[in-house]
């Protein structure tokens, strides 16, 4: 079975050249050709049915996307108005009155419930928390240090001894600060504690009021403002008061009193001169522990008054006072007021 390829091939050539045929020269010699031609006709029919592309099909411009017509402002406003109040359906913002009231009802119920729950939680919290002893006091430890008076811009004391107006504010602050320390008040409210030891009163009932030790203003002598109501400011020998922040139940120094030192960080120690501390440069143990403001109602912080009697005039000093003792941190990189206080001092003539 060998296919006779020549014959087939020839035929194919004749019938395959449609493009050439179409242009013209139609010689229908034999029957086969005629068949082929009539077949072509049939294909032509088919073609007509296929509807070749026409001009409008190739009008590409027509198919390019057109921008959507923009709404005018008044149309937009109308739409908005309609959205806010639709008079036909009597709807406000797309919802009927009933729908809105149900929503309101649900949310008020939800929020009332949440608020009640919050109130209950807060009540339970306050109920569970001891009003006399804080649950934790690790954030407030170790104690910070504070001074009085303070300047308007923080910790700076600068004045001219001869200019009363430049220091009167410091004096007023000190006076106000020392008011609770008046001897008469102290004697009336607090007891005398002779011993130099912690004044522990744990044997009492938890809620019972604790006694506080006296700290008399007169003990501060030159810095008490009793003899010199200008606390030495008028003479250029200023006093400041130092205090250790109180912490409930804290026993500073573990048996040894905390000691206070002051030094000039800038300006030169020799120019700052001697520094005097009243009553002593320590915080006496008898003032500790602190029992909180509920039980220790009349408690007054022990103070250390610092006097600069021979400070060089017209010199800018930066003075740092520190607490020193066991358990005290006075060089924290993050908190400059932890166990130390730094202030600037400038005294004019």
């Amino acid at each position, binding site marked *: *079975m*060998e296919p*006779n390829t*020549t*014959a*087939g091939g*020839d035929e194919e*050539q*004749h*019938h395959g*050249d*449609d*493009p*050439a045929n179409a242009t013209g020269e139609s010689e229908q*010699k034999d*029957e*086969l050709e005629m*068949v082929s031609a009539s*077949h072509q006709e049939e294909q032509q029919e088919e*073609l007509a049915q*296929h*509807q*070749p*592309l*026409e*001009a409008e*099909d*190739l*009008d*590409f411009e027509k*198919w*390019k*996307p057109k921008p959507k017509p923009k709404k005018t402002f008044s149309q937009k406003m109308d739409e908005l108005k309609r959205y806010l109040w639709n008079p036909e359906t009597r709807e406000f913002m797309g919802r009927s009155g009933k729908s809105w009231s149900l929503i309101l009802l649900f949310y008020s119920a939800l*929020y009332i419930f*949440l608020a009640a*729950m*919050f109130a209950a939680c807060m009540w339970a919290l*306050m109920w569970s*928390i001891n009003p006399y002893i*804080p649950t*934790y*006091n690790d954030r*407030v430890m170790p*104690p*910070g*240090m*504070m001074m009085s008076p303070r300047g308007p811009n923080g910790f700076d004391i600068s004045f001219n001894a001869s200019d009363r107006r430049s220091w009167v504010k410091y004096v007023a602050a000190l006076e106000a600060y020392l008011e609770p320390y008046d001897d008469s008040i102290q004697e009336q409210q607090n007891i005398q504690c002779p011993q130099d030891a912690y004044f522990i009163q744990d044997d009492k009932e938890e809620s019972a009021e604790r006694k506080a030790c006296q700290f008399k203003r007169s003990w501060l002598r030159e810095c008490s403002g009793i003899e010199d109501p200008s606390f030495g400011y008028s003479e250029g020998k200023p006093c400041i008061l130092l205090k250790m*922040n*109180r*912490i409930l139940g804290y026993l500073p120094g573990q048996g040894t009193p905390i000691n206070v030192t002051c030094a000039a960080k800038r300006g030169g120690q020799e120019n700052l001169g001697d520094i005097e501390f009243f009553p002593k440069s320590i915080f006496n143990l008898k003032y500790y522990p*602190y029992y*909180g*403001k*509920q039980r220790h109602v009349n*408690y007054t912080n022990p103070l250390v008054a610092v006097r600069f009697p021979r400070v060089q005039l017209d010199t800018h000093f930066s003075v740092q006072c520190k607490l020193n003792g066991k358990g005290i941190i006075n060089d*924290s990189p993050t*908190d*400059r*007021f*932890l166990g130390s206080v730094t202030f600037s001092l400038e005294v004019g003539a």
Partner: protein
Amino acid sequence: DSYGMFVEMDKMDGEMDVQIKKKKKIKKKERLENMKKEMDIDDHEITIEELEMKYTTSVTKGLTTNMAQQVLERDGPNELKPPKGTPEYVKFARQLAGGLQCLMWLYLAITLIAVVVQALVIRDGQKNQINANMLVVGDLVEIKGGDRVPADIRIISAQGCKTRSPECTHENPLETRNIAFFSTTCLEGVATGVIINTGDRTIIGRIASLASGVGNEKTPIAIEIEHFVDIIAGLAIFFGFTFFVVAMFIGYAFLEAMIFFMAIVVAYVPEGLLATVTVCLSLTAKRLARKNCVVKNLEAVETLGSTSVICSDKTGTLTQNRMTVAHLWFDNMIHAADTTEDQSGQSFDQSSETWRALARVAGLCNRAIFKPGQDTVPIPKTLSRYLAKADRQPQPKMAQLGLIYLLVMKGAPERILERCSTILIKGQELPLDEQWKEAFQTAYMDLGGLGERVLGFCHIYLNEKEYPRGYRFDTDEMNFPTSGLCFAGLISMIDPPRATVPDAVMKCRTAGIRVVMVTGDHPITAKAIAANVGIISEGSETVEDIANRLRIPVEQVNKRDARACVINGGQLKDMSSDELDENLRCHPEMVFARTSPQQKLIIVESCQRLGSIVAVTGDGVNDSPALKKADIGIAMGIAGSDAAKNAADMILLDDNFASIVTGVEQGRLIFDNLKKSIAYTLTKNIPELTPYLIYITVSVPLPLGCITILFIELATDIFPSVSLAYEKAESDIMHLKPRNPRKDRLVNEALAVYSYFQIGAIQSFAGFTDYFTAMAQEGWFPLLCVGLRSQWEDVHLQDLQDSYGQEWTFSQRLYQEYTCYTVFFVSIEICQISDVLIRKTRRLSVFQQGFFRNKVLVTAIVFQLCLGNLLCYCPGMPNIFNFMPIR
């Protein structure tokens, strides 16, 4: 002549492009004038001499090299300009960030290995082989079998030249006889022609440029996100303004209140959301890539899920794109052949004598060749495959059977029958009487009605004496009998549907997606294939079918009774857009046949007008405008042209329609899961915002800092929100209708309100309870906290008293504030863990869905807890990120 017109239109359009830049009014007038003027020019009608004149060329010698150079400078190279788009480096940078870059690079590599097309051109009377992009108008080129036609060519002379083009003539009614179109392939023969159009001015070029003219529509997900941003912005401004007023009322300075306003608006922005959405979409894209769908644009993933109409091309997508024997008629019976891709189906009874004869005739008549290694493939199999190459013209062929010759012939059935006097039945030659002729007619009509291409076969044994061995047959002389032959049978062929398609179409249908067939093929074939794959379901009738059945004129049929409808390009052309919309509305099963690229575009637009999200599948350049116009264009990876791939948003690497169904499923799942993710992400906005509001209004120490908020947004909560993307479908999502893009929003008011005002409120409540507890335990009772802000934040106040009378320095207070941040952070985290469990399901109960089925989610929760612990307890955190160890 319609053909002439479209050639002119080409030119006109070229000019029109220039005109676009001019003012509109002038343009309109000029366009009309141009249209009239250009009507006279007619490249295919004019004589060759006129053609020579027009292009100053010669049909024998071609252009002169100088002339060619000039024209090249004028027109530019003969290549399609890639559509204007994002610069490549931007794409590159974008791709670098994506997880898909490997696949994309692979794709890029494939695209680059495109072979440079060469063309044989005659210039100065010399034949030269040059690169096709150097060709110019007027060049004389020669093409032969296997070449790609390098430009639009007016054929001058040809020998047996046939071109086939999947892009133009085959699919579209761009048929003519003496023009060969750019990018078509010359199947056989040789032809010489003059180039009339090059590059973007060719028909294909015009179609391709149409694609770049079609604007990129916003993807549904982009619209959704815009909508969502509107909601968020509205709420943010509402909140901001409310608290601005409140702050002013309380007595803050105007500037301070303005700062609060800005801070609230900024705090309202869900920072983690974009990351979540992108990651969710990438995950799905990756999953799809594993299933052979490469997603070019991440947003397309979701688009596929919301698709409600798929306009599918027929050839190559629904069908196998090869002619295969579908039916045979012999022994007065129609036999169905196996059309499956791997020949695994049932075959017919092959025992008859007639089949043997028919098989022999068919085998001899076809021009297929065995590929190496196919020698063992049984004849019936190969036959049914390769008969495809046959054509319809009667072609006698000689074969030697031992001592005698056998003349075999195939061709259009009616022509073959005319030449026959006998018919082969059960191996017996019976006279071909009227009865057989009627039987033949019935069979022919039946097969034709199936949309199949029918061929007739006949043979005759030649007398040994008249045609001895070595007889020289001459087809020109016809020195052999051409009548009185013996009819062997009919074989009909079709491009059969892919095996997976009917199932996939069925799935689409249950998923509420309309599959519309849009093809360039003949309506009958299109209808047959549509019925075959289920696009026209069983029992559905077209208007014509009903008219036939009821024997009434077509006009009397109620259109709405007909479920199916077949519209051809001609009808479509006469339809207004309203009519088309109406048709699409009342017939659920639509087939468009004989459509042009522009008409594909109209169909897509019409569907979109009706509110559908349209997916278009296609492979050819002619599909590219529709692919671009569609909400999601899906190109075929194997058969697809570059233009189609460029215009598409998604590429099916295996050309399998069924992959689309997977894509739809994944798209729907991601929409559901994105909703969950977004709801989860949104919720924590309120507990992040309320601390600030309370801080302003009640003046408590700040409960939650910005760094902490950023940690929630961008560190701890990202993983759980992404893990929701791994959530399994809650129900059979493929049995639901596609979402209504107008109603089923990604983020609607209900979701936002539920997240913000319910869950968010509860979370804030939890946060504040914990905050006040943490403060109270350190000595700051809630009532003291109220109004404490100015003192708390005073840096000079180093001895602020708490409720117990203890004195705090500023830094101590600050660390206490950090503790509060951490406490609030942990509260939100814990709430968010329960929130993620709430969000796991939208319809089912979490017990039905299963707590631990989503392993990623469980891992995410563990991760969240670990990260939270690390942030709280890692040394150094207080000073770096403001986290404090909490009890």
